[in-house]
């Protein structure tokens, strides 16, 4: 499970997990009242707690780890971050609706809206829920304060035509529309500009969640953009297909969101990133509807207009329908992992695999700190035998192979396809890995939350070291009392480079303004990445969080190009979330 807050403010990471009170939201419709946390990532029932014995435990039933005791997590937290159970901060358990800014909507618009029979809400909870993504400062505000500006009204269009009507009404009444899909943004993209005077309409696409048709001959499916990733895969799976697009957020993020942010999936090595998957897009803009005239794999008709839409982050319009490639569900899946004596060897191995173009569906390399964190999340073992096996493995790697437990790192692999081909493929990869000294291991890693992500060429080792070092230094300079948890992993390999995630957590005990400190450190880390030749973002997008570096990233002319598109498509800035530009 991914819990961005848990990661970032580790010293008090328990605060949000202390039984937040559920309150109804209209979300994930069609599956009953699934409940998400109102002030954090994921499901209400899945959280880390300390049980009566003082042991860490993960609740719920959804995940492999659910319901298990994690006996070494507490020690890890104490050791790595200087966290202690005696220093708990309890955040408020539920939203105080009296703090919520009032909803200001003109009666004329409401009349038009009612006439169009589109459902809407002005309830405080509904509006606050759509006023934020999952950046640290947003979650912090939810728990400790209140947003200055939130949407005035939430609308739930049911189909493409409803969206057309809403956009027309917005133009007519001069309103500001901020589209929202799964709400999993980590770039401040959903934050309402504080000085927006117009009525802000939150356009929630969650009710547009049908698969309209599946073309088994051409292997495409036409789908409404509001569908959530896990629903999409489940429904396609019922007829034996999948898209193969699996971003870490796929439990909660939507197809439209993927398109709007240029998303990337874990298994892009087989299925491609969103730009490789999309065949056709329909988007409603203030100028009208934009779409291509046919559903073909490729066109040579000038610059691809899809590339203005992908990554537009809700600044141009609302993506309503998407035709996406589908594949038959693979017959066979196999997980594996490889241990390397150090991070450098691991990176060299990944590079070799990319060079030979034999990367499995997913291959990820975690550094030593994350490897140790993975160990901290190991559940209590059921039998003496498994514990014996674990001990043996540990002995084998550290003593027999001579790997330093404080240096070694692990790559996790996922193979997919025909059984035979998978086995063949697996052998090929392990043969390469053998040159870099490997060993099999059966540890399953849990995916944790990301803060930064970047792509770059050939400079992985230096970049990783520099950025981690910069984070540690900045923390020290900013008065953080305990060494931070500063770690990274290589999550994607490309022919021409790789993608790296950086994670960091620090204990903010004794710091008066931890969010500000966090933001300064994050900023410094991002500057370090840019200075090292990394990019601004591999797949989370720019939003408002990374806007200031756009000019540097794509040049003056590049920025001007994007601006002129915006000016033509949306001259009155109806889609006024102010992302990107």
């Amino acid at each position, binding site marked *: 499970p991914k819990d961005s807050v848990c990661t970032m403010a580790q010293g008090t990471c328990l605060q949000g997990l202390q039984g937040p009170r559920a309150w109804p939201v209209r979300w994930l419709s069609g599956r009953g009242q699934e409940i998400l946390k109102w002030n954090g990532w994921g499901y209400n029932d899945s959280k880390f707690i300390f049980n009566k014995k003082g042991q860490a435990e993960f609740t719920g039933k959804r995940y492999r780890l659910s319901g298990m005791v994690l006996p070494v997590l507490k020690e890890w937290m104490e050791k790595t971050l200087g966290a202690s159970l005696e220093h708990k901060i309890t955040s408020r358990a539920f939203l105080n609706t009296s703090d919520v800014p009032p909803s200001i909507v003109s009666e004329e618009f409401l009349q038009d809206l009612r006439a169009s029979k589109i459902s809407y809400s002005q309830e405080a909870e509904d509006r606050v829920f759509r006023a934020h993504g999952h950046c640290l400062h947003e979650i912090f505000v939810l728990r400790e304060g209140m947003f200055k500006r939130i949407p005035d009204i939430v609308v739930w269009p049911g189909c493409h035509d409803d969206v057309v009507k809403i956009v027309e009404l917005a133009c007519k009444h001069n309103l500001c529309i901020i589209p929202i899909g799964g709400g999993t943004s980590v770039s401040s993209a959903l934050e309402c500009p504080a000085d927006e005077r117009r009525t802000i309409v939150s356009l929630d696409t969650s009710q547009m969640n049908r698969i309209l048709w599946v073309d088994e001959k051409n292997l495409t499916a036409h789908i409404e953009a509001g569908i959530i990733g896990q629903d999409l895969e489940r429904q396609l799976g019922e007829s034996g297909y999948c898209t193969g697009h699996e971003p870490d957020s796929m439990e909660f993020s939507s197809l439209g969101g993927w398109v709007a942010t240029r998303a990337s999936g874990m298994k892009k090595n087989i299925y491609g990133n969103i730009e490789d998957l999309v065949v056709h897009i329909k988007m409603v803009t203030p100028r009208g509807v934009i779409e291509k005239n046919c559903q073909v794999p490729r066109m040579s008709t000038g610059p691809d207009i899809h590339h203005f839409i992908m990554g537009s982050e809700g600044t141009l319009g609302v993506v309503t329908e998407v035709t996406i490639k589908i594949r038959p569900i693979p017959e066979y899946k196999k997980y594996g992992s490889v241990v390397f004596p150090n991070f450098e060897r691991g990176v060299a191995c990944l590079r070799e695999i990319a060079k030979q173009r034999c990367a499995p569906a997913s291959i990820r390399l975690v550094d030593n700190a994350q490897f140790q964190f993975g160990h901290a999340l190991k559940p209590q073992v059921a039998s003496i035998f498994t514990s014996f096996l674990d001990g043996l493995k540990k002995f084998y790697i550290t003593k027999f192979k001579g790997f330093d437990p404080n240096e070694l790192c692990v790559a996790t692999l996922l193979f997919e396809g025909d059984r035979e081909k998978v086995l063949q493929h697996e052998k090929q990869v392990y043969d390469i890995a053998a040159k870099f000294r490997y060993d099999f291991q059966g540890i399953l890693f849990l995916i944790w939350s990301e803060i930064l992500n970047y792509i770059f060429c*050939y*400079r992985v080792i*230096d*970049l990783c070291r*520099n950025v981690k*070092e*910069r984070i540690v230094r900045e923390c020290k300079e900013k008065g953080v009392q305990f060494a931070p948890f500063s770690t990274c992993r290589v999550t994607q390999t490309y022919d021409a480079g790789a993608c790296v995630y950086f994670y960091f957590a620090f204990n903010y005990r004794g710091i008066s303004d931890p969010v500000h400190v966090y933001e300064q450190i994050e900023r410094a880390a991002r500057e370090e990445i840019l*200075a*090292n*030749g990394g990019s601004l973002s591999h797949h989370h997008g720019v939003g408002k969080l990374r806007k200031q570096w756009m000019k540097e990233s794509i040049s003056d002319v590049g920025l001007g190009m994007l601006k002129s598109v915006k000016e033509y498509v949306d001259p009155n800035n109806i889609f006024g979330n102010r992302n990107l530009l």
Partner: protein
Amino acid sequence: TECKSSPNSDIRKPGSIWSHSVFAYSQQKELTSKKRDEFEDILEERRQSSDLRYAMKCYSPVIYKGLSACKPSAIKDSVLQSEQVQYVIKQLSKEMGESTDIIQEEAIEILDEMGHNLHIGAIRFFAFSLSKIFKRLFQRVCVNEEGIQKLQQAIQEHPVVLLPSHRSYIDFLMLSYLLYTYDLALPVIAAGMDFLGMKIVGELLRRSGAFFMRRTFGGNRLYWAVFAEYVKTMLRNGYAPIEFFLEGTRSRTAKTLTPKFGLLSIVMEPFFKREVFDTYLVPISISYERILEESLYAYELLGVPKPKESTSGLLKARKILSDNFGSIHVYFGQPVSLRTLAYGRVDRCPYRLVPRHLPQKLSEDIQEFVTDVAYKMELLQMENMVLSPWVLIASVLLQNLPAIDFELLVEKTLWLKGLTQAFGGFLEWPDNLSANKAVTSSLALHSNIVSLVNGQVVLNDVRMENGATEELVFKQALSILMCGAYRNQLLNVFVRPSLVAVALQMTQSFRKEEIYSCFIFLRDILYDEFIFFPGIALKDFEEGCFLLTKSDVIQVTPQEILVTERGNSVAVFLAALFRPFMKGYQIISRYLSKEAKEAFTEKQFILGIRNFAFQLLQTGSTQCYEVLSSDLQKNALAAFVRLDVVKKMKTTNGFTYTVNKEALNKTAEMFGKCISYWYTS
């Protein structure tokens, strides 16, 4: 114009890290006494315990974090196999149509010729023999231990570059010796190839960590690639601190030489490419009470060629072992983080868009940055140079030739001591001795230059008579240049206030604007002679004015600068300190306008000016012996080129120069003002 902004108005500060703020000077005075207490004499212990045991001591220096030990041969291999070197080999093979194997062989040869071969045995040998030698040569070797501790810390954190001042061959021997004494990692040293001529010593040096570079290799791309990669490999992996001399060569005049940028830009590159997180630059100031090579330098400056380094030459030098060379002060400066220096300056690195192994020309931004860092480091070196009483005595003496009464000398020296301290000079004055005794012992130490005859202190061989023979002129020049090298040490501290004083005399004006533009002229002319941070003339001016105001020499109003009554004698002294330079430049400009041929080479120029000056000195029409210094002559030529008075042109065999008479007359006029004042005063 720039000069309109007065020293009292708001000063533009180019960022705190870069500003040599005037306040630094006021703080420095208090620091001076503190600094002195920090010094520890390392020879003291050597005189009390066994050198052999010391040489055989357990030596386990702290190293860069995460470093795995590596043999020199492995380093050479990794240099040879590096993408950078392989790329250049392939390029050259393509261009010259030769097989890569042949070029690879060449690269191996270069590497063998260059590479160090750090060996503990050699280090122990040096530790033993240097202990013996140093104890004989020097009274004390003083080190600031706090600096050593900071260095020890720095070595563990990031790659370290040691940047010592360069006054003597002793410099790098001493530095390695000190690091060994304090159990620190021995540096690898970029040394000139001329050492290789010394058979046994060359090999010993190599084994103690020296690596050798050819003095000139601008055109040889393979050499450059191998050399640069060698240095960077050492640095990146943090095998050992890199040591080299920013000044490029030993300063023959004891003035800090303008920095060379080649090596500095090489050691900065791994940071620019972010191959390392940071790099520490450590300025080190090594001050000698008496420089081993003092007479050798004077001969060289007068054009007697430098003897080639040879082992037999070193053996002959044994006779100096019976001589006393006073104390040495080694000050390890605060390690300077390159990352901090670069903050906000070189964000847009070209290295992001090009594969890192491709050789690239430095962008203008980066070149400018490297230049600034080089000057900054030299200024830091100068700040911590220790001045001995003899430096003050020499300065007084040179203004009172041919002889001065001993009592008067003591009095004036004491007066100068006060002024030096007020200007922030880092003075090492023996507090436990009376002034008389301090001066006497200094005179004794330098008895080869001065003698005390009948209560008069005289510079040996100097009589100041007209119509002397060439031989006599030569002898006198020798003494004056040797003495001048010590006075020069004071000039680093005095240059800013002195140039203000000179400007005051030249302009004979109170108007600040006029004085400032004259100051700019002087600073421009003397830019190669002294170290000024690039581009901040106004700051230099303000600093000079500030120090003079502080010492009550001048009063500054928004429009005017007035010399106080008390300050007049100080101003005269300060201006006189720089008289040899002004005079020298004037004589050279006279030579250029009268004698210089249509087009001439540097060699012709130096020969010409030397003859010209000898004649003047023999006939007694000048007393400026320092114009004979080839250092001053070369600097003057460079200054005239910079000011467009002389045109420099590239020809097939080197450079030739031609004079622009019109511009020369203008410049000569400026000098004329100054000189006429001195003649009338």
